[in-house]
């Protein structure tokens, strides 16, 4: 489904990603865990070209490409098949919930308005936000905003959805409602990469867990392998603190 080889990225001479190999198969839920600053978020941002990699190779959709040489047009094409859920939701504050969800369908993909309305209704029902469809983001709680953001990202039926710490900006009592929506998606076979600090979620939902440290993948395996019998010393330390 999506594969990355030899991904390097540094900011101002500080190496953040030091040769990452990463793959996601169809229907997998991959949880990426690790300390703050380990490069998890940067990995996701390079995969979606919000940051430009210094070197690396990517296979996704019809593209097998050098990540440093992809054109703007190709990036937009790739993003048409990707969903992205941000830590800080980033709902368009000038649009209602409904408009937020329809925007990617109507403006970006030229979908017929009636069809888009139907699709938006469907995804908003799925995340339990249809009764807030006419609200503006500023009128919603953080958890509600994130559920709308998830609806917005799944509306165009992307092949893969990238979640960048989707619950880190939420009060503890609001994380549950967002995680529940993500669990539903996982059960439906949605391909997901989730950068998270929610170990409970990773343990329960992830089909594979990737532990990162200092810009490298230290260990990866099934949730069972990583959480009950981590091989690497650093993984053991990290899991015992968190």
């Amino acid at each position, binding site marked *: 489904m999506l594969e990355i080889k030899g991904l390097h990225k540094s900011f101002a001479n500080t190496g953040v990603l030091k040769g990452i190999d990463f793959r996601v198969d169809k229907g997998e839920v991959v949880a990426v865990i690790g300390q703050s600053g380990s490069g998890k978020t940067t990995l996701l941002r390079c995969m*979606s070209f*919000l940051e430009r990699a210094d070197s690396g190779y990517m296979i996704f959709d019809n593209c097998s490409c050098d990540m440093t040489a992809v054109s703007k047009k190709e990036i*937009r094409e790739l*993003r*048409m098949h*990707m*969903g*992205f859920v*941000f830590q*800080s939701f*980033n*709902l*368009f*504050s*000038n649009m*209602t919930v409904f408009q937020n969800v329809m*925007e*990617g369908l109507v*403006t*970006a*993909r030229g979908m017929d308005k009636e069809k888009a309305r139907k699709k938006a209704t469907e995804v908003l029902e799925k995340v339990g936000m249809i009764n807030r469809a006419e*609200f*503006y*983001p*500023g*009128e919603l709680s953080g958890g509600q905003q994130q559920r709308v*953001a998830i609806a*917005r*990202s799944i509306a*165009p039926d992307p092949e893969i959805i990238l979640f960048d710490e989707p619950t880190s900006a939420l009060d503890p009592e609001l994380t549950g409602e967002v995680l529940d929506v993500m669990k539903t998606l996982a059960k439906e076979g949605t391909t997901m990469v989730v950068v998270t600090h929610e170990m409970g979620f990773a343990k329960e939902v992830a089909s594979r867990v990737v532990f990162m440290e200092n810009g490298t993948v230290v260990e990866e395996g099934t949730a069972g392998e990583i959480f009950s019998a981590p091989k690497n010393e650093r993984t053991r330390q990290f899991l015992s603190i968190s």
Partner: protein
Amino acid sequence: MSSRLIEILTSSFFKILIPGIKITIPLTVLSFAVSLVLGLLLALVQVAELRFIKDIARFYIWIFRGTPLIVQLFIIFFGLPSLGITLEAFPSAVMAFGMNLGAYNAEVFRAAILAIPKGQMEAAYMIGLNYPMTMMRVVLPQSFPIAFPSLFNNLIGLLKDTSLASSITVIELFTTAQQIAARTYEPFALYCEAALIYLIFSTALTWLQDWIERKLKWKSGGSEDAGNQRTA
């Protein structure tokens, strides 16, 4: 106050007000329209990082902010004819005011665009919008309410600056007051009267600003009031 003075003031009030309505206001509105279009374009080419065009925009702003408005007026009205370009007084004034304020409004728009959190653009890109779509649908609609108070500030400034058009033979509010003052030898009373009429105009603009700002707030939602009403 002598009855003669009262007589002069009352009879001149409408004589000054009418060119105010017929010349000063259209001059202000047209110049402001020019400055908005120009300012938005100058801001957009700068934030889009269009290399060469961006430099032209910076150069333009440098010139028009760095030289006096009255000098710009004189160059356009008295100077351009020697290059073979002759304009009537009114269009010369619209051009000078519009181009001058365009430089200032460019900075207002640029600041308002830069004030939009980067995450809004990133989210727009990730749902598949390209750069022009992102600007039109997400960034500019959010920038406008931010730019609005400063733009209106400049509009009120412009209203008063149009009195400079008197120096290039436009018969507007202030020119008329000058003519009557010269005829009646009552400069103090007549210039105070002109000031009063400018004040009436700018007060009306202030009310208009308040009214539009309330509308903008309502439209963008998110105010405490709107939230409470909706959840109640």
